[in-house]
């Protein structure tokens, strides 16, 4: 099943890397074009002259603009994200702690969303036009229209405030009464992550459903689906093995859009649930004008998107044997 030539993969990686370079340049331009001086936003009143000088030094603000740009690009590629004035710590350290937390939340919702969405899309597309399709489809559009923070509040209200089943904030129990073992920590994290994941997937699955439903419906008209029926296969087999398997192919491409949606969603959700990840920090840092942090978070989220696109591309080639990248046809 190895259909991807090393050459093609290399090409995709080069393109992804170039994309990131352009995004970084964009970032540089954006931050330098802020109203007011770049430095004023980073100086708090309590800073000593020395500290200010240090900031100027780290950011190379004494250098000409092109020099700053080159330094910025090099620093970023070597993982030197600078120091955060608000946290008073290297940004890289901050990121290393926060990134996994976001990835856990994001990964879980991504997986669940991309299982539920295509499944529902499969059924709706197969039975398109039926009463069930109409009612489920319009309901899911209603879900899709809900602001994610609002639906989170409703969940917290029901499951935390009224029923008291699940915690509504943070990643761990704040003052634990249990022994810290790998198992209890895992359980505690799961306990805390339950509501955020529920809130996010409650809306998040709709995106992939919206792609799956029409493609599934198109696929039902294909000759091979007709032939599968004619072979006497059961309806279930035809639907899953022949129709849905093919309808999944465009969903893989569409995953890119769903991905962006989920990243946006997880930023909001992290803020609602005080989940100490990158989504939370990007908002606070922007509001607190902690630009080194904002910049690095933005950059790493972009890296995440670019990597995920690379992955979907690879998945795509596995889903569709007709595509054999990197060779003549």
């Amino acid at each position, binding site marked *: 099943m190895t259909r991807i030539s090393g050459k093609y993969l290399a090409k995709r990686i080069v*393109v992804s890397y170039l*994309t*990131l370079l*352009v*995004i970084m340049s*964009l*970032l540089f331009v*954006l*931050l330098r*074009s*802020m*109203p007011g001086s770049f430095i004023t936003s980073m100086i708090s009143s309590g800073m000593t002259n020395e500290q200010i000088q240090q900031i100027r030094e780290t950011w190379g603000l004494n250098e000409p603009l092109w020099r700053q740009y080159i330094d910025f690009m090099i620093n970023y590629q070597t993982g030197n994200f600078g120091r955060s004035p608000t946290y008073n710590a290297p940004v890289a350290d901050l990121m290393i702690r926060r990134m996994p937390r976001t990835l856990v939340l994001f990964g879980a919702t991504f997986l669940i969303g991309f299982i539920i969405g295509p499944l529902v899309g499969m059924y709706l597309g197969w039975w398109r036009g039926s009463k069930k399709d*109409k009612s489920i*489809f*319009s309901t899911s*559009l*209603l879900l*899709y*229209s*809900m*602001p*994610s*923070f*609002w639906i989170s*509040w*409703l969940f*917290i*209200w029901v499951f935390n*405030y009224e029923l008291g089943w699940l915690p509504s904030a943070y990643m761990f129990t704040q003052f634990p009464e249990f022994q810290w073992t790998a198992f209890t920590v895992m359980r505690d994290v799961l306990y805390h992550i339950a509501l955020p994941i529920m809130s996010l997937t409650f809306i998040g699955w709709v995106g992939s459903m919206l792609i799956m439903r029409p493609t599934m419906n*198109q696929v039902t*008209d294909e000759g091979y689906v007709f032939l599968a029926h004619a072979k006497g296969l059961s309806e279930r087999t035809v639907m899953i093995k022949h129709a849905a398997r093919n309808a999944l192919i465009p969903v893989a491409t569409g995953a*890119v*859009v769903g991905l*962006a949606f989920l*990243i*946006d969603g997880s*930023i*909001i959700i992290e*803020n609602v649930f005080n989940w100490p990840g990158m989504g939370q920090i*990007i*908002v606070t840092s*922007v*509001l607190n004008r902690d630009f080194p942090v*904002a910049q690095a*978070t*933005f950059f790493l*989220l*972009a890296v*995440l*998107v*670019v990597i995920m*696109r690379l992955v979907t591309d690879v998945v795509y080639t596995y889903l569709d044997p007709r595509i054999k990248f990197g060779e003549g046809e």
Partner: protein
Amino acid sequence: MATGQGDTESDGESYTRRWEPRLERLKRGWSRYSEHNIGILGLVILGIFSLWAVVPGVFAPHSTDWVAYLGEPPIESRLTAEQVRSLPHPPAFGDPFFAPLGTNANGNGILSLVIYSASNAMYIGLAAGLLSSLVGVPLGLISGFYGDTWIDEAIQRFVDIMYGLPFLPFLIVLVAIRGITTTNIIIGIAVTSWLNNCITIRGETLSLKERSYVESAKVAGASDTRIIFRHIMPNVLPISFVFLAQDAAGAVITQASLAYLGLADFTANSWGIMLENIKSQGYIFDAWWWLLPPGIALMLMAASFYFIGFSMEDVTNPQR
């Protein structure tokens, strides 16, 4: 187009004759659209919101400056401590005041606020949707029509890079930098939402320009502009309306999310700000009459756009 002026010489009668078949088609399109209950529902909801947006005074029980117990401005007295403690006040129907959806912590009527905020959401939705169509459709048309040339390649590379940007973070940074105004929010939303528009229109254009009616127009000597405007655009416009509706829905939700994060123009009335207020003032679990209406209004507004969009998609789908 230099070729189109001949039509002006025709008399009125031939114009009616020419428009008749088009009206007939519109009617048929409508009858297909109206097969979808959600399409009708979407139009009804949007219709109500439009009325709220245009003439909120007719529907709202009081103005946005109305304060519980005290009434409409000009307000001379102040609230007593006891009155302040009763805020946010649950729905009241005349005793001690009339506020069918209760009040917020400042004593403003929730129903009035919800109705007066409709115009803001409507404006953001339509403006962002329109703006992203105005960028995405022409770029998609050009990219598709000149497919496989450097023009296409350049546009597609640009789109590719834009897809690499995480949307909300980009928006947050953009708005934070450019200043938090409604216009900037609209621009920020449009900057990222035109991408899908462009990609789909490009794909559609690529397939349309291979149609033999486009080729026969070429054989007849039609210019590129004539082909784009007369033969391709009319056939992709319905799809772009679908995207307009979907982008509008997305914009409404995004704006609310930004407001939640504290990035909103707080001088305006909006559902997002109402929700931000309930959070910042700490009444999320104490004042359902304040929590639910703006959220439901947001949901219905976005949903009505989605309903219209997806019903229209079915009408424009040539397969059915």
